[in-house]
């Protein structure tokens, strides 16, 4: 048992990994072998063999914990006594948490709008130009890296050194300020602007996603429409407004909602860049610090539930729009 739990050397870890995958393969193999007798095994058993493992894991890993968290959110910090809606009341009334809510609203409004607008314009601009694939790959690259790495990259851009003779700035932005004859600025320290400088990072990551999806649908616009508009003498701008944008509306909705949801859950960027200090915390990062730093489980659970509740309308809207788009086709 210990061998399975305490892997400390590289060889041990790799061996454990192989054992885990093999054990999984064996278990699944046994299950499949057991249900692979078409005539003698009833259908429900076959279904259980195929769906059962996944359903079991999803129930243990998502359904049960979600219900449990709902319950925890009605209890005191250590989970010992029942406090009703006190935690929720605290979320909406305490000064600190109101700041968190305000920040979250800023993130969820600004990141999707700006990323999508940028992605759309860029996809339109770069469409059918030379170097299209290179330019797109460079914008898309941040999508592949972690929020931790992105956070570090940008913390370095914002790096501040005190404005003293003999000390040079090592962060690019502050060096630019100095070159322009201005004083260096503590980008991550000064409220409320620091939140905007964090938002920039999320936009930097998501613009590539928006561009990729939108570019694919711009290319899918029927040439007949484009040709007809051109014959009618539409200018570039008219073309963009009256042909491109309406044609890719479903994709725009998908991009906006997808980015909104991932922004709502953003945690790693804030965690790495400011740790949620200096008034930059958002719901997802506040959840972490309440639950695991300040051991206020009730409040943490209430924040998690809030996150859950906020995601739902966005997804419902998204699914509805998808349905509509499918009907049209």
């Amino acid at each position, binding site marked *: 048992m210990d061998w*399975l739990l305490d*892997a400390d050397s590289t060889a041990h870890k790799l061996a454990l990994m192989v054992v885990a995958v093999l054990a999984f393969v064996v278990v699944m193999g046994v299950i499949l072998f057991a249900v692979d007798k*078409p005539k003698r095994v009833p259908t429900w058993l076959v279904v259980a063999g195929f769906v059962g493992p996944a359903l079991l894991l999803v129930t*243990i890993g998502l359904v049960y914990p979600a219900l449990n968290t709902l319950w925890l959110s009605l209890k005191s910090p250590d989970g010992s006594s029942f406090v009703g809606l006190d935690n929720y009341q605290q979320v909406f009334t305490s000064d600190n948490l109101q700041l968190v809510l305000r920040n979250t609203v800023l993130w969820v409004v600004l990141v999707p709008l700006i990323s999508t607008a940028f992605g759309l314009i860029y996809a339109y601009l770069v469409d059918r130009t030379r170097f299209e694939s290179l330019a797109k790959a460079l914008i898309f690259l941040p999508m592949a890296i*972690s929020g931790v790495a992105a956070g570090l990259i940008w913390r370095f851009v914002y790096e501040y050194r005190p404005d003293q003779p003999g000390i040079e700035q090592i962060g690019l932005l502050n060096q630019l300020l100095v070159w322009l004859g201005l004083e260096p600025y503590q980008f991550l320290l000064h409220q409320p602007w620091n939140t905007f400088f964090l938002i920039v990072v999320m936009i930097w990551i998501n613009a590539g996603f928006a561009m990729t999806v939108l570019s694919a649908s711009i290319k899918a616009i029927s040439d007949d429409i484009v040709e007809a508009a051109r014959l009618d003498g539409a200018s570039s701008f008219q073309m963009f407004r009256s042909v491109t944008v309406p044609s890719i509306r479903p994709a725009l909705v998908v991009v906006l909602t997808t980015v909104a949801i991932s922004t709502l859950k953003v945690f*790693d960027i804030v965690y790495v860049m400011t740790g949620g200090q200096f008034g930059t915390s958002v719901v997802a990062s506040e*959840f972490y610090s309440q639950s695991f730093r300040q051991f206020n489980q009730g409040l943490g659970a209430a924040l998690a539930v809030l996150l859950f509740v906020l995601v739902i309308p966005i997804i419902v809207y998204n699914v509805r729009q998808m349905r509509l788009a499918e009907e049209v086709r």
Partner: protein
Amino acid sequence: MSGQTDTSRVVTNPTGEIESRPRKLSRAEKRAIAAKNRLSSPAASVIALLIAALWTVPTLGLLITSFRVESDIQTDGWWNAFARPLFTGYNYVSALETGLGDNFVNTLVITIPAVVIPITLALLAAYAFAWIPFRGRELLFVAVFALQVVPLQVTLIPLLSLYVDLGIDGSFWTVWLSHTMFGLPLAIFLLHNFMKDVPASLVEAARMDGAGHVTVFFKVLLPLLVPAIAAFGVFQFLWVWNDLLIALTFAGGDATPLTSAIADLAGTRNNAWYLLAPGAFLAMAVPLAVFLGLQRFFVRGLLAGSVKG
């Protein structure tokens, strides 16, 4: 333009038909149109490239920094390296020696099972949802689909206490399990959509020959689904490799992966850029390689998975 309609279908409704027959034709056509319509203004190209370069400068800055001598990093900005080029790989050695080498192994050990296991389970479940008729199938499928709504945060504390009760907290098992559970709803949904698009005649023909579900699954469907599996695989790979929240919550001690180790370093050694810069690139190297190598699949997984947050 059949190829182009395909792309639009992927955006709203993922299908496995991208590789279908008319593709070659449409590509040639596309090129012809592109040649005809190539934006007359080279200005657009120049602006687009400039923005792309601007987008890359922050990353480039940290990359150059990661190869500068420690004293140079402390003295002035990375742009001075163009005037005084003096580079070293020593920062990477120091970063590995502070323990990031072990963390790299941990990330690898976490990622491989956390990609293989959910994909396998999801394939089986998706097969049943697509090709085995049973009572309550639609309802169950919608329920699984709806679980995508659940944010990770909601599940962490109950799961953690569950792991503690089982006595497996802090081990690799908790991380594998968690990533598997969280990845399943999207994986089942996507693979189901791909699987549904396999022509029914193929499946029925195999059944006529007396093949059971297991045989149909392995012999008929699996080979057709390789592109879909690759698409979701890349997606899940990047998600697991880059994850911080699950890592911080579940993987402690000897199982700590790169992301949480670097995040920790960023908190405790605030200005140690000679460690943070190579650390960030150790974490980025593999996803970037996967991204550059499998971009086609990644984009496809992304287009198909647009529903997920």
